[in-house]
């Protein structure tokens, strides 16, 4: 039972990170139909900023703030430079553009920083842990869960009560009508990217604080998982992204903990097969996006 609870905490910590990343992907996808493969590189940028701040001896709070802002700025620049010219093109065109951007950034990291994994200096308290009865929970795990919850509450408030958030939701349901209502396309899209950068930055801080290292391909695997989480939840649906992230995190952690030893090597395939099975019953994801129904015949 203790093992199960322990793993549940882990599942929430991992699932939360996936959820934040999946949300970042979903915000952009729901508005402009772009599946952004370069989302992982935003994470990597954050990771490197955290590393350099650590080397410069800045206080952790400031490092985190800088790391997250770097991701936001990078996301907005990415939109302005790479994605604006292909904004109205097909999904395939935008997707290929995004992986060209990802490829270029990865090579730049390898050349300008290092092809190898770099250690990130983190404050000592992150590696401490707390006892709850029989459970031993790392501060970094608690931090991840708390941060995720705070971010989700913030996002919910932002999307429901802020003008920019409401504009984004309107654009996600029907961009052309939203524009006719006077919503500026450039502003909404830049805002969506900034938000996705914010989420990627926070996810990067959580990710790095549990691994204490960063490498040029750092963002690739978690963002891949986030794609799957976004589909599992329902592509383009924000609540779906969160649900998909947590479900995927749970699947991975529980498989790692409870799958018999001889099947451990097949953990990823088994996990993904479970995802596919869920999708077979709910082809549009756990919580389908509202825009799916909007098509008029």
């Amino acid at each position, binding site marked *: 039972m203790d093992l199960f609870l322990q793993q549940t905490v882990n599942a929430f910590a991992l699932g939360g990170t996936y959820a934040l990343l999946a949300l970042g992907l979903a915000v952009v*996808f729901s508005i402009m*139909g772009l*599946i952004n493969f370069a989302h992982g590189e935003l994470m990597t940028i954050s990771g490197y900023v955290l590393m350099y701040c650590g080397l410069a001896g800045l206080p952790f709070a400031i490092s985190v703030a800088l790391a997250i802002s770097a991701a936001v700025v990078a996301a907005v620049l990415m939109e302005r430079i*790479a994605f604006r*010219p*292909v904004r109205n*093109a*097909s*999904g*395939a*065109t935008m*997707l*290929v*553009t995004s*992986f*060209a*951007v990802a*490829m*270029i950034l*990865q*090579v*730049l990291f*390898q*050349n300008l920083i290092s*092809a190898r994994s770099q250690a990130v200096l983190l404050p000592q308290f992150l590696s401490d842990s707390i006892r709850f009865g029989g459970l031993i929970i790392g501060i970094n795990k608690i931090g991840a869960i708390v941060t995720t919850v705070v971010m989700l509450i913030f996002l919910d408030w932002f999307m429901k009560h802020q003008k920019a958030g409401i504009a984004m939701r309107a654009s996600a349901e029907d961009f052309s009508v939203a524009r006719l209502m006077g919503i500026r396309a450039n502003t909404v899209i830049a805002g969506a990217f900034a938000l996705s950068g914010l989420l990627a930055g926070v996810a990067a801080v959580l990710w790095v604080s549990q691994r204490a290292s960063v490498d040029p391909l750092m963002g690739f695997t978690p963002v*891949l998982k986030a*794609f*799957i989480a*976004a*589909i599992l939840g329902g*592509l383009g649906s924000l609540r779906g992204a969160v649900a998909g992230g947590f479900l995927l995190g749970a699947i991975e952690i529980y498989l790692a903990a409870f799958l018999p030893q001889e099947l451990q*090597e*097949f*953990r*990823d*395939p088994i996990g*993904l*097969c479970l*995802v*596919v099975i869920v*999708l*077979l019953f709910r*082809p*549009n*994801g756990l919580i389908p996006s509202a825009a799916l129904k909007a098509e*008029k*015949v």
Partner: protein
Amino acid sequence: MITSPRLQIFAAISAIVVGVVGAALIASMFGAAAERILTVFFITLVGVVGIGIYSGNSGILSFGHVAFMGIGAYVSALLTLPAQLKVATLPKLPDWLATTEMGLLPATVIAMGVTALVALLVGAAIGRLEGSAATISTLGLLIIVHGVIIGWRDVTRGAQSFFGVPRETGIWAAVIGVILALVLARLYRDSRSGLRLRAGRENAIAATAVGVNIPRERLISFVLAGAVMALAGALLGHFLGAFSPKKFFFNDTFLLLAMLIVGGMTTITGAVTGAVVITLVTEFLRRLEGGFSIAGFDVPSVFGTTQIGIGLIILYAMFRKADGLAGLKEWEERVFPKRPPSGSAPALQEVHVSDSLTASNMTMQFGGLVAVNDVSLTLTPGEILGLIGPNGSGKTTLLNMLSGVLRPSKGAAIRGQNKLNGVPAHKIVEHGIARTFQNIRLFPDLSVHQNVLVAALSTHGGEDADSRARAALARLNVAQLAGESAGTLSYGDQRRVEIARALACRPSLLFLDEPAAGMNRLETDALMDTLRGLTRDLGIGILLVDHDLTLINQLCDRIIVLNEGRLIAEGTPDDIRQDPAVIEAYLGRGKPGKKTKPKNRDEPGPATELAG
């Protein structure tokens, strides 16, 4: 059966054979290094067109097909690996496999078969997903297959290199492979299945309405693409001699997809263009990567020049030509465009069906909104029934229910003896019902001829499809536009092509949703003549929705009127014009205090009686 002109197919295939064999001959003059580069290029090209068979025709980007390439490589290599080596390196193989040792050709064929079977299972499972969800699920496929290859150590040596594979892929094996793949891809593109699939890519709802079973066509192309990828994998495995699971993962997926999309996903011309451009750039940059000196300056070696270069090429191509360098048409379609058919067109056949369509108590609820409420109607071949009502009164929703696009919340539609409720949307047309759409739904990147032909091919088992298509085009006076892309036509022509497409299904009942919208008086008059002809000469029954009341009044035998989802009146045009409920629905009740029937405001009056 191939649906495009013979000349185009002939030109395409000759160009493929001449080009590939010619390139191989030239390379053989430059020696072994050039031959190796060309062999790799040919194998890559097989992979690119393999993905193109599925992604290009269905419009769904697939990340998963490189996994099939991996399966093909491993299966074929397991069959060709010398038996002794197998016993030594893979001791846990089952006996029958350990003792098998065959040549490249049978091994490749078996690998393609096995992969096609896997693709069939996978395709059947993920075929229900749409759009980006389908794309990401193929990403899952790639990861799953990669994981299985790594995990299944007894058969695949896990993450380690799978070595000792006989290097049997020479330049001529690659030549045969690439010709096979290119010709297959080219033929599939214009086969019946390929054309239907492309129609589904352009507009799924319209394709379904003319009888295309999109999931089935997708599955066919998915499996075919899987087999071609297995061919690429088998050739690659026997070229390299040793490979690991990493070879069939993201790097190669991205490279192949980049080639396909940069060149133009929808054509073979595009696949070849993209593969050529990116291979040339890669080869050029790879030479620069080690550092070079220019005019006395030493440029230091930069790791990853190639990747950055490819990345920039992709960005440039996508910014400039979002549809790919080769655009949306094959080269031979540009050079030898289809000419409008000469000679007199065949006539459309008369309808010999007299079964009427009876809809009773049709109701459609969207959440709390009742868009159509308890409406009943009958439509018989040979008559024109008008369906009018203010905006938002439920006319289109009613059409959508009758044509299978929407499933009614309540009520039943019966054609002759058959209940239409449970019939899948793509089978409705087999019950003699064809339709057009309020917001035009053509297949914009297909030619006018193909738009109509695909409808003819997908109905009545494709019998006399060609003559039905020509007759329908001639009937609507759009035969001279046959070669144009449908998306480039004027608004009125698009409407006419849409009607022609519906007629090509040889329907006995035709639903037209605002056919005259956006037409001027002259065009509307011509349309009226055409529609009258359809009922008079051919005996087709028409359900006509329009806001042009002149058109409705002059054309219709009967009219039914909807308001706020309810049927408020039914009768001849004369009856309808005098009907107070209709006048009220269109013009309102008039000001209180004026002498026009003030009592209407207080009492239900005749309006509600009619509505009941």
